[in-house]
């Protein structure tokens, strides 16, 4: 069964990309932000002399998890339950949302504080809670900006990467109720202070916290959340009830395996040696933190991806977003063009695999790449994204005209005489065009249906002489 939620693009990527490319402010913000983080990442990765060994270990640990997934999930459930947590399972987005909404309703609370979590974005939890009469307050600074602006995130790690400081100040002044913000400047420190004041009372009064998890340790039943601001610690520590939504692929086998990922993740994502705060908790601890701890294990299409032997490596992903920051396509179009909470290179392989390529316009996502391979080099768990992109392009649904064209090409190219004859015919047909295009040797606009090819590239003309002809004549 395939996944659902906010991972289905409603618009073909080229159409969405064209719209985003028209926004010059967006392109300037994106370029500056992606280059800043790219340089920081390179600096801190280059000071680790065993980085490649860490990547090899990280990839192998995650592959090991996938190979033993049923056993490790049951082990995690058993140990976490013994430690006082309640483990729930959800097949898809709707079921996960229903489980969480039921749990919140059971506490009597009508407001929850949230730690930034890709899993809860993926399943569309905030909308589902709103329909159940429960207000979800995002507490990560960037998520708060996006929520106040009534917008959607455009980056995995820094969801408000598409806004600059002046735009953020304007959003705060317009939408942050309660305080007098008329004198607010666009100094980042002043903006952070405004967010601190806005959320402080919410944290101290919160009865229910909702989080995801970066890692779930099968051996000990421990969940791990990696963050920067301290909003995560607030949500994980102060409420009476904590509900964590965790994808089934988030497991690591042992506590010691965290030694690999706590090195790979911070340096790859924010370009820091270590993120300011990492929280680990195991079930319920008397006198410290929430008294009710729930864990919702979510499939939502992960098992479909697991069944694909080329594509399943996408399930190694630890959501660092290094691939977004190095991608020449993401840098220009931004996250919204991908139509899913998972943008960039990883989104282009993850979204269509979770939903199936027939969902919405997701079959266009594997084409949102130049196959340059920068994402593979940057990936801390060595996901060969270009390989999976090509695999998805080959296995995805094709328009009838393309299938017919490819069949005809295949017939022509299977036989040497047919191929030579076709080349001669093409050269004769191209002669007048060669005059028209003068020395450029390429056509910029072909008539329909070939215009689909020339809409984004030139069509080269056949050469005056082939290699075989030159060889025979020499």
């Amino acid at each position: 069964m395939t996944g659902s939620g906010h991972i289905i693009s409603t618009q073909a990527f080229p159409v969405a990309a064209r719209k985003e490319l028209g926004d010059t402010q967006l392109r300037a913000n994106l370029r500056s932000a992606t280059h800043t983080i790219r340089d920081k990442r390179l600096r801190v990765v280059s000071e680790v002399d065993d980085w490649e060994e860490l990547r090899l270990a990280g990839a192998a640990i995650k592959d090991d998890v996938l190979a033993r997934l049923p056993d490790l999930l049951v082990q995690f459930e058993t140990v976490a339950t013994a430690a006082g947590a309640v483990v729930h399972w959800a097949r898809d987005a709707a079921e996960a949302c229903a489980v969480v909404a039921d749990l919140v309703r059971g506490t009597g609370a009508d407001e929850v504080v949230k730690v930034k979590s890709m899993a809860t974005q993926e399943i569309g939890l905030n909308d589902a809670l709103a329909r159940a009469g429960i207000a979800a307050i995002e507490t990560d600074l960037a998520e708060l900006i996006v929520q106040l602006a009534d917008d959607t995130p455009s980056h995995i790690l820094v969801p408000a990467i598409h806004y600059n400081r002046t735009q953020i100040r304007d959003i705060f002044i317009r939408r942050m109720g309660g305080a007098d913000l008329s004198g607010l400047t666009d100094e980042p420190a002043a903006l952070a202070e405004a967010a601190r004041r806005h959320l402080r009372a919410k944290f101290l009064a919160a009865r229910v916290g909702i989080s995801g998890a970066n890692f779930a340790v099968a051996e000990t039943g421990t969940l791990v959340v990696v963050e920067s601001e301290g909003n995560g610690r607030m949500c994980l520590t102060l409420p009476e009830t904590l509900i964590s939504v965790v994808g089934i692929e988030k497991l690591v086998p042992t506590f010691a395996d965290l030694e690999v990922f706590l090195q790979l993740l911070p340096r790859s994502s924010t370009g820091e040696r270590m993120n300011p705060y990492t929280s680990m908790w195991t079930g319920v601890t008397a006198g410290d933190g929430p008294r009710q701890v729930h864990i919702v294990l979510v499939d939502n299409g992960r098992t479909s991806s697991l069944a694909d032997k080329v594509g399943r490596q996408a399930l190694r992903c630890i959501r660092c977003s290094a691939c977004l920051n190095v991608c020449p396509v993401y840098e220009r179009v931004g996250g919204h063009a991908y139509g899913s909470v998972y943008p960039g290179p990883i989104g282009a392989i993850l979204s269509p695999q979770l939903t199936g390529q027939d969902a919405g316009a997701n079959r266009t996502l594997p084409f949102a790449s130049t196959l340059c391979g920068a994402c593979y080099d940057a990936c801390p768990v060595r996901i060969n994204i270009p390989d999976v992109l090509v695999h998805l392009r080959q296995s995805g649904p094709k328009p009838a005209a393309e299938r017919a064209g490819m069949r005809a090409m295949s017939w022509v190219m299977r036989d040497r005489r047919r191929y030579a004859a076709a080349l001669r015919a093409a050269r004769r047909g191209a002669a007048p065009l060669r005059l028209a295009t003068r020395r450029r040797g390429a056509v910029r606009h072909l008539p329909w249906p070939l215009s689909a090819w020339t809409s984004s590239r030139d069509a080269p003309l056949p050469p005056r002489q082939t290699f075989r002809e030159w060889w025979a004549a020499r």
Partner: protein
Amino acid sequence: MVGRAVSTARDEILDRIRAALAGDGPARPPVPRGYRTADDPGTDALALLEDRLVDYRATVRRCAGTGLAGAIGAALAATRALAVPPGLPAEWLSAYHGEILRDDRDAPLTLAALDAAGVSVLTGCAVAIAMTGTIILDGGPGQGRRALTLVPDHHVCVVRADQVSVTVPAALARLADRSRPITLISGPSATSDIELNRIEGVHGPRRLDVILFG
């Protein structure tokens, strides 16, 4: 009713995984562990830790011998009231003369008391990682529950020289009790959400003083 639906979901997900792995499922790969795990004895761990903490805008004070209480007193010069966890060595407080708020399992401090202006918290730690500038709290004696080091705006943390490891693997291996809540702290609260530049000070303590002892 919820219970029945959930157990069905559990069985169905486990069945789907087994089906996905059947046939050409991946073999268990060997995990190559060629990365550094042990500390290099040639590294000056304290100097490295200080460098990394300062880089994250934490304030670092080095002291030895009888200088600890004085260094703590200096870090608390502007403190109105000091929250302390159970199990904190009494001599650490000998140079501090302000109000003391003792947190206790049976009589925990209220969040409002911890949130008041001018409140600092003083703790020890379990382990520290020099390479990443990280302090690890595991709720052991002298560290307290998590809210204690989260709600006050100023955290003073004492790190003994023998608690410092150089690498992440060596430090994690020293955590004795992994079932308690564990918090890794690397500098004061920070965000990179505005134009991807790091700003110190959002929700956690905005000032972190680390006292390296020994």
